[in-house]
């Protein structure tokens, strides 16, 4: 009986991690892409240059697909708290549920309300209003990120509550303290930059692909292709170093509030000053030792405390039943940081090529940026795995254990639903990615809005073609 319960818990966790892991890819994509689209449309309105409209038309098709997948996978998440973590919901719902409701009311409705106008309304509302709709959608994605991260950060570093002794429920005392809990600003900044970086590398890789294709055909790439590549590389060069700084600050914050997580991330067992940094190793939870360690002396203290003498915590400081599973997060953390280093290098390289005026001709660079297409998303997922697995064995840090959070669902139901989720997600989101890649495999045409004008029925997404735009801008004027 106990075994069945443990297995059901394991499946509940697995199912949650799987569904939220799939979900987060799409919101991150939407957050970055919506902002990019708002910038493109703004530049088009300001400069009147066709290249920005071409790019807008090209990327909004991708956006409509990505956003749709974000919505359906997000719907699942909002019910999964209750289906999988009903005991958690009952105790923490008075706090996390309220934050989620605010997210729905301030963000989801805003996004959904203006999405229709953004996708289909260009020939109905005029340029200015259409731009406003794009901005509303973009702001909506950012507000949404803010609330969900406030909720998640509260679970990591809870503040502003009292615990009701009779029921064990969390009673909110101070909503400002709940929302602006200690890890929230760091997580918000780090996640926001992650979304922008992920999209920068996805857009950059699309540009690189078309630059390479043009080169193989022996023609010069079109203006939109060069423009998207250049814009993406600026983002990479500026945001990647910022992300390293944000990550560093986040790590210092975690050291203060969740030292066990840091010990597990670093694979350190004994608390020490002048600690080394482990580049590689295999932490062993049984023997309390990290095997095959490759160490750089002093670097651990330097990174985590910004001083050579600083004390770095070790896992032996914490009782066995309060240690997160180090082997997972030791690696997920290193993958994230490794990718960050690569991203910074790509950014620096792009600046150097720009100075030598070979940004659009260096085939090697284009190949490398093409390979970096998924880098942002992989780093983002690894970051979340580090954060969430590193929180174990708690759902509300130090207060509510994961074992006391799970729903009373029988094992057989869990098995059925897990199987169904995997099958459906692979079919639907697999097809979605296929459709997306095929779409991006087609180059944006210069004056794309002209070529479609002759087949109104074929116009995807915005239905913007010059005639209707002129008509509507006259109406707006």
């Amino acid at each position, binding site marked *: 009986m106990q075994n069945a319960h443990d297995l059901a818990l394991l499946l509940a966790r697995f199912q949650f991690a799987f569904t939220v892991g799939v979900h987060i890819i799409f919101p991150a994509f939407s957050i970055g892409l919506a902002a990019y689209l708002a910038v493109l449309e703004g530049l088009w309105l300001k400069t009147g240059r066709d290249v920005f409209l071409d790019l807008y038309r090209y990327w909004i098709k991708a956006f409509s697909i990505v956003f*749709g997948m974000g919505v359906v996978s997000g719907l699942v998440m909002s*019910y999964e708290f*209750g289906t999988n973590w009903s005991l958690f919901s009952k105790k923490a719902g*008075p706090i996390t549920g309220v934050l989620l409701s605010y997210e729905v009311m301030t963000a989801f409705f805003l996004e959904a309300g*203006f999405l229709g106008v953004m996708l289909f309304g260009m020939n109905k509302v005029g340029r200015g209003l259409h731009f406003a709709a794009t901005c509303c959608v973009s702001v909506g994605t950012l507000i949404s990120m803010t609330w969900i991260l406030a909720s998640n950060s509260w679970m990591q570093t809870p503040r502003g509550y009292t615990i009701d002794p009779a029921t064990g429920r969390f*009673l909110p005392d101070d909503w400002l303290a709940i929302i602006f809990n200690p890890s929230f600003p760091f997580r918000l900044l780090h996640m926001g930059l992650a979304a922008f970086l992920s999209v920068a590398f996805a857009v950059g890789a699309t540009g690189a692909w078309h630059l390479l294709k043009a080169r193989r055909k022996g023609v010069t790439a079109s203006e939109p292709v060069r423009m998207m590549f250049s814009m993406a590389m600026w983002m990479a060069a500026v945001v990647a170093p910022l992300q390293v700084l944000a990550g560093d600050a986040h790590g210092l914050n975690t050291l203060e509030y969740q030292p066990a997580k840091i010990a597990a991330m670093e694979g350190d067992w004994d608390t020490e000053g002048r600690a080394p940094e482990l580049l590689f190793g295999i932490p062993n939870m049984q023997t309390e030792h990290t095997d095959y360690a490759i160490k750089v002396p002093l670097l651990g203290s330097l990174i985590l405390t910004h001083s050579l003498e600083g004390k770095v915590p070790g896992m032996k400081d914490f009782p066995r039943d309060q240690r997160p599973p180090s082997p997972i997060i030791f690696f997920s953390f290193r993958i994230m940081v490794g990718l960050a280093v690569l991203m910074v290098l790509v950014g620096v390289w792009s600046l150097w090529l720009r100075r030598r005026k070979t940004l659009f001709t260096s085939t090697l660079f284009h190949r490398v940026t093409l390979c970096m297409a998924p880098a942002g998303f992989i780093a983002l997922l690894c970051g979340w795995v580090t954060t969430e697995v590193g929180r174990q064995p708690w759902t509300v840090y130090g207060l509510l254990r994961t074992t006391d959070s799970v729903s009373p669902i029988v094992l057989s139901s869990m098995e059925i639903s897990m199987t169904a989720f995997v099958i459906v997600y692979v079919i639907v989101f697999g097809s979605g990615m296929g459709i997306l890649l095929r779409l991006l495999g087609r180059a944006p045409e210069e004056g794309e809005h002209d070529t479609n004008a002759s087949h109104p029925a074929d116009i*995807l*997404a915005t239905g913007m073609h010059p005639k209707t735009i002129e008509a509507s801008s006259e109406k707006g004027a």
Partner: protein
Amino acid sequence: MMDFAHWLPIIWAVILIAAITIYVILDGFDLGIGMLFAMEHDRGRRDVMMHTIAPVWDGNETWMVLGGAVLYGVFPGAYGTLLPAFYLPIVLMLLALIFRGVAFEFRVMTKDTPRQKLWNVGFMAGSGVAAFCQGTILGGVIQGVKVTDGDFSGGPLDWLTPFSILCGLSVMCGYALLGATWLVWRTTGPLEESCRRWAAKLAVGLFACIVAVSFWTPLLHAPYLRRWTDWPNIAFVAPVPILVIVLGMLLVRGLRQGHSRVPFLCALGWFFLCLSGLGITIWPYAVPPTLTLWDVSSPPSSQFFQLVGTVILLPIILTYTIYSYRVFRGKVTETDGYH
């Protein structure tokens, strides 16, 4: 004077029922159109059907997210009891809604390939299954959930009874009626004509369902029966069945006489009456037959904080929702290629 802690859950119950009603009506016609897809095989007509809802379906579904979130924040006891109790139909519904939701874009992007057929099927099946699951969950709530010490203690298939299946079929029928009357309003020509015929048949079907559910429900629990038959309640609730019949007659007449908006409004009226009838029946239980609204409420500090935001934000949301509907108002025809 009763205190705050007494009134807050009542206010919230009213808001929640309003949100559910809005969801049922709005997503109801989306899902109904999904089911009617199975009846219309012509590609042009199908595209028109899609076009009438493509710009608004996401906003419609958001009311369901709101319903879930409000339950989670304001009535966590109900959220944490009902969701495990209806685990399987909820998961099935969510998966069905995934197929329905992605079909809007995927269908267009796979145009002229054999794969489009698959997404059409996904759209129809997704809509039908989601509607059926919503009905069975509703029926399951009405018939009651086994609870011990405040937590769900029944089996994974407790919800599956003849009554809940009847409710599932009724909701399918009702959504299809909403979809058909919506299309009568928003389309022209042969599609409109064909929807008029469907709407008439579905209206008869739904009427039969309403009668069956109305007679069955009071037999489930003694308090339900008393709610409807005791004096003075009966004086207030007696008009409900009469209104149902009047609206039904108006609906059929509107369809025959070629009105475009009346049938849809009558169908809305039916839904409004049915949902209020159900609300009256199970009041004041959140999880019949054991947990009341007050048993499942979050503390007043949560309910109040959320109420402040809701009072400010809901009117704003309604305003821009109406605006976005107005942008896309008017009849949709096959030459309106915004896809």
